[in-house]
């Protein structure tokens, strides 16, 4: 399945793109997505370990299955306030 990952803030700056597309096997998890994203966009490496994923505006865990129909976003460490 083909997944589009939205990027924000420093991740968008590192990748020089607002989104990255990656190809995943069926049944892939967010941990698999992180690995695929690291391969597709090596420039994201400084943020990779500390970032989380969200699907349809909800945080997801690494072991959760990726829902290709959802809007998926990479959430780098937040710094609001």
């Amino acid at each position: 399945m083909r997944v589009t990952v939205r990027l924000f803030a420093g991740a968008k700056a590192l990748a020089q793109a607002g989104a990255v597309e990656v190809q995943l096997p069926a049944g892939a998890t967010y941990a698999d997505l992180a690995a695929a994203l690291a391969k597709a966009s090596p420039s994201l490496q400084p943020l990779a370990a500390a970032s989380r994923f969200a699907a349809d505006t909800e945080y997801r865990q690494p072991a959760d299955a990726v829902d290709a129909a959802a809007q998926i976003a990479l959430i780098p460490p937040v710094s609001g306030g």
Partner: protein
Amino acid sequence: MIQLTDQPIDAAALLAAAQQPAAGAVVLFVGITREFTAGRQTTQLSYEAYAAMAEREMARLEAAARERWPLVECCLVHRTGDVPLAEASVAIAASSPHRADAFEAARWLIDTLKQTVPIWKREHYADGATEWVHPGETQQAAP
């Protein structure tokens, strides 16, 4: 009440909203743009939000705070875009019948907001450099 806005935050209006007859205490927290961080001079901050998710997380925080403390009013407002020195980027107003609950709730709300709400700040330094703030970011290897 939660709000994301690209306009200046009216903290007096939040205070007024929280000042209800059922309350005996109002705590107002305002986070503002600081000029010096670790000796480095900032000229302004700019904030980016994943708006739909930030609003949802802020609403979740309000609901969780209301469940945990007997709050009369609970307002969270965060500004996006450029925030000049000394202006507010975030404001929280919590009111409760007795002061301990309002103090605890306001403290918990700002601490948790800073950990979970998808909003990011970018430093604009006096020397012209800019930098996204990502706590926990690993250093980029030298090219």
